[in-house]
């Protein structure tokens, strides 16, 4: 099936164009730095000269929760930013350069063209997040305590799903747009919309941002769940990819 041939090419492309290296490097650096920052932040604050007497005593001792929260905060910011940066040119750039029209006159269906790009990006983010999680888990164990494997794995799985919502949204923007610049602008609007809706009371329960909170709670032994956000995130990925395909199959190149 041609999807696998195209996917293989996409994965080689992610490797040779150093996209995988960039995503992995950023996520691994923040994976390693998160427990370290959580550990050192109180000491750094205490070392500020002229700190009022008694205030230093009020700064709590760093905990495992701080390490996990730091990790989730860093990942949610940089992971989403990378999802946008790595996906915005994926289709628009090929249309702009002319490689899309070159390839689509060969046995490459428009659905395979889009799906291969999404799957390749998903693989890049999954692999990078795995490396980042391993680094974070190891440093947290050295500096605090061992994180429970299962829930920590689930946290990373939920974060990956949230990233993929943004990848799919950006892929849609890249499909609709004729140029990379327009794709970037549209993707930024999409990001603001998703994040904006996710910050509204009540609605936040249904948005991908909630997955970060669920994962954190799960890792720390909490009982909070966010199944509506989970299913809606899957729905959003399918919806964005579906719209991208409907737009792309009618698009003239």
């Amino acid at each position, binding site marked *: 099936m*041609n999807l696998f*041939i195209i996917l293989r090419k996409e994965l080689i492309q992610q490797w040779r164009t150093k996209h995988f290296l960039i995503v992995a490097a950023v996520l691994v650096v923040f994976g390693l730095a998160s427990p370290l920052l959580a550990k050192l932040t109180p000491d750094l604050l205490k070392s500020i000269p002229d700190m009022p007497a008694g205030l230093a005593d009020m700064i709590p001792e760093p905990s495992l929760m701080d390490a996990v929260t730091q990790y989730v905060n860093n990942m949610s910011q940089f992971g989403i930013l990378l999802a946008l940066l790595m996906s915005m040119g994926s289709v628009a750039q090929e249309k702009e*350069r002319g*490689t899309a*029209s*070159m390839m689509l*006159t060969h046995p490459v269906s428009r659905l395979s063209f889009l799906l291969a790009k999404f799957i390749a990006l998903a693989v890049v983010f999954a692999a990078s997040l795995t490396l980042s999680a391993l680094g974070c888990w190891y440093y947290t164990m050295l500096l605090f305590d061992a994180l429970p494997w299962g829930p920590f794995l689930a946290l990373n799985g939920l974060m990956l799903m949230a990233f993929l919502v943004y990848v799919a949204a950006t892929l849609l923007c890249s499909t609709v747009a004729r140029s990379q610049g327009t794709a970037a602008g549209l993707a930024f609007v999409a990001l603001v919309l998703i994040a904006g809706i996710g910050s509204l009371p009540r609605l936040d329960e249904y948005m991908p941002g909630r997955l970060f909170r669920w994962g954190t709670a799960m890792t720390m032994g909490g009982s909070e769940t966010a199944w509506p956000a989970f299913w809606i995130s899957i729905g959003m990925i399918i919806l964005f990819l579906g719209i991208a395909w409907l737009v792309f199959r009618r698009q003239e190149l």
Partner: protein
Amino acid sequence: MILVENLHKHYGAVHALDGLNMTVEIGSIYGFLGPNGAGKTTTLRILTGLARSSSGKATVAGIDLAKDGRSLSSRIGYLPEEPAFYPWMTPGEFLDYLGKLHGLSTAERATRTRELLELVNLAESGKRRMGGFSRGMRQRMGLAAALVHRPEVLLLDEPVSALDPSGRKEVLDLIGKLSGQCTVLMSSHILADVERVCNVVGIVARGRMVVQSPREALMQQYAQPVFEMEGKEPASMKRWADLLKDYPWVSKLNQDNHILRVTVSDVERARKELLASAVGQGIILSRYQEMRPSLEDIFLQLVNHEVAQ
């Protein structure tokens, strides 16, 4: 075979194609000529399935594009005017990738890649990344990519526009060799190139076919036979021109100093009588030439007439 019937393409108020009709017979090399904006690239994009017509019918290799565009890609090869490639790939990798998409076996892909790289003179750059290729190299690579699966129909959009004279000759010779092996539709604005390799010519203007005909028949139809003679003395040439006016087969005379240009209505009689007349009048000629109308003359004549309408 390519069959286009009453094809229309509108971009808002702009009519890129306005009822285009075209027939490209199996095995022919069809030169698709027209001024800029005539609709050549639009037609090719529709025939490749990259764009849709507003109305009308187009059939390529027996496939009705409106009904079954999916199976088209295995039957056609397309070279866009500015072919683009993945800059991180080498030509060998790209041809191998296309071969895989077309279902060629590993051995077939290796052989075909080697053959094509040699054919388009890129064998030495086979392992170089395409990001650094010149426009000419990209055009030759594009031709190799279009040929990888031995298509029945080859659609070429200005295939030699970026090549130097020697590259142009090589590629045109290559296209010429495809005659009878596959059907070639080649758009160009370089008339000499079309005249060199194409056996059928279609001239398009304002999205409409002005004329389509076998090249030789077109030349015959629009030929205005002209004989050009260069004499030693302008005065004797003038005297001879005055005498030639009375010949019934002479339709137009034009003298420019030493050169006399005679447009004739009967080529055979002119061939027999013109030189005899010169000898009879004691005219010393340094040059005698039967001029052949170029495709460029015909193109300009037809397109200017169409635009004037």
